């Protein structure tokens, strides 16, 4: 029984979607690969603007808030599951296959939802957007990761930062676009169904660019002037490869799981309650925050989240992944401490600290694939990344749960203003400190977990990956 993703595929076999048909000619520019990745990530990032559809659905189909949130929640669960379990398939079949599957699932999800709304069968919306579309989210999220790192071994942080920034940017595009569409068609069953239909068709066309454009470098390809042996002299960077099955047996994987989980929890803690939090902090001051100003604050946080993904991830190429996470977790904890001690002293202090935390939240997402590549090599890094994303699923529950539950209990105890959040802020500091210590414990992976080197390529120290690695 071969290891996950190790099934050998003949380079000449397979149809248009096969890996062998995506091997780039020698003159292919690697700068054509980021737009392919972005066409997928900018699309699936739409998931974070689902809230736009909630009020119209509740009105048209007489749903509760909990019911209208179901498609999104199931979609995020399916994202985690399909990324975790679909990773080996993505590695085996290549990025074009993965992008195609993502496109079909994500677009079909909208089309099934359109049918569900048109026939007032809400379960079809949950099944379509949540289950089918959610598979598209997970497969799409990991589809370009290992390919980008093979094209940019000299700048893996920047490369994956571009794609994962796209996931943040997807909601920025979809939110105003969907709102305008619902405004034009009307928030009736017919109008919502029409909007879903158009979303499905447009996203299918938009994602097709990625399917057509994505290429994998030929085995042994390296960018000009890049020496993998020299790069491997940096701390924690390996030229060896670890399979996805072996990776989860290493302590490094689980330390990094804790790092990602707690970094995301801390970010979501602010993101989830940003608008009410800033209003509560300054409710009893000379400069109270209006509802519209709070909405502007949320927009500013989105910008910080998105910018952090590309800026910090690129910075990690220069200072190293471990140092970058020391900043995310260590400086993040200090910023949380400043908010809890002096956050209500001035709006500028509160806003700057929140911006820092959110930029680290985005940076944490974007830097983790490169950290995995440093530790485990590029062989099955997409599949390993998929399994690590279960940390995101846990954090997605943990962060809002901590902040909301504590704020509700403090409110019930008669507290107001910043006091509603003090306890949860200290919990976030504690989680960040645990994450910081977990990052400190990360050491190079032991040789016993490494895959045997199949061949050396072109006289370099690069390790050839079997056919099927994306």
């Amino acid at each position, binding site marked *: 029984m071969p290891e996950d993703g190790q099934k050998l595929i003949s380079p000449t076999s397979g149809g248009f979607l096969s890996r062998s048909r995506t091997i780039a*000619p*020698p*003159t*292919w*520019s690697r*700068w*054509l690969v980021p*737009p*392919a990745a*972005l*066409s997928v990530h*900018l699309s699936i990032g739409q998931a974070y603007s689902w809230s736009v559809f909630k009020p119209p659905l509740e009105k048209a189909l007489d749903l509760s808030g909990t019911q209208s949130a179901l498609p999104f929640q199931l979609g995020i669960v399916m994202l985690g599951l399909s990324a975790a379990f679909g990773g080996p398939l993505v590695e085996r079949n290549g990025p074009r296959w993965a992008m195609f599957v993502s496109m079909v699932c994500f677009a079909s999800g909208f089309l099934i939802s359109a049918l569900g709304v048109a026939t007032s069968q809400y379960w079809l919306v949950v099944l379509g957007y949540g289950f089918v579309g959610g598979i598209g989210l997970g497969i799409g999220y990991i589809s370009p990761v290992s390919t980008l790192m093979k094209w940019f071994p000299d700048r893996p942080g920047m490369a994956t930062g571009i794609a994962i920034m*796209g996931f943040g*940017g997807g909601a*920025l*595009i979809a*939110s*105003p*676009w969907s709102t305008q569409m619902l405004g034009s068609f009307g928030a009736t069953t017919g109008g919502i169904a029409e909007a879903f239909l158009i979303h499905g068709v447009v996203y299918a066309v*938009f994602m097709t*660019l990625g399917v057509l*454009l994505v290429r994998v470098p030929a085995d042994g390809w390296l960018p000009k002037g890049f020496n993998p042996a020299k790069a491997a002299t940096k701390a924690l960077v390996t030229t060896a490869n670890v399979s996805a099955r072996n990776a989860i047996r290493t302590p490094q994987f689980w330390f990094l799981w804790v790092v990602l989980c707690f970094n995301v929890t801390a970010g979501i803690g602010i993101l989830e309650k940003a608008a009410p939090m800033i209003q509560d902090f300054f409710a009893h001051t000379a400069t109270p*925050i*209006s*509802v*519209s*100003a*709070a*909405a*502007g*604050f949320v*927009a*500013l946080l*989105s*910008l910080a989240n998105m910018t952090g993904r590309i800026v910090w991830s690129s910075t990690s190429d220069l200072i190293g992944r471990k140092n970058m996470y020391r900043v995310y977790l260590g400086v993040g904890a200090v910023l949380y401490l400043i908010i809890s001690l002096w956050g209500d002293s001035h709006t500028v202090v509160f806003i700057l600290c929140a911006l820092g935390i959110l930029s680290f939240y985005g940076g944490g997402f974007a830097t983790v694939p490169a950290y995995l590549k440093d530790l485990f090599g590029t062989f099955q890094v997409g599949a390993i990344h998929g399994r690590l994303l279960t940390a995101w699923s846990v954090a997605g529950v943990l962060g809002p749960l901590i902040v909301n539950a504590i704020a509700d209990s403090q409110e019930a105890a008669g507290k107001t203003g910043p006091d509603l959040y003090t306890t949860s802020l200290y919990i976030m500091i504690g989680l960040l400190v645990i994450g910081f210590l977990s990052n400190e414990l990360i050491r190079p992976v032991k040789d016993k977990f490494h895959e045997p080197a199949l061949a050396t390529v072109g006289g370099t120290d690069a390790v050839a990956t079997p056919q099927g690695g994306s």
Partner: protein
Amino acid sequence: MTEQTETSSRTPLMILAWLWVGLPFAYGVYELLLKLSQLFSG
């Protein structure tokens, strides 16, 4: 065909690909900046 000519023949594809993703992204950022202005006017 030389390598340089083949690479330059991909320039239109490069422009098209980046515009394909860049234009919607720019629209999203523009809408975000409009909303952001509420922080200072609100």
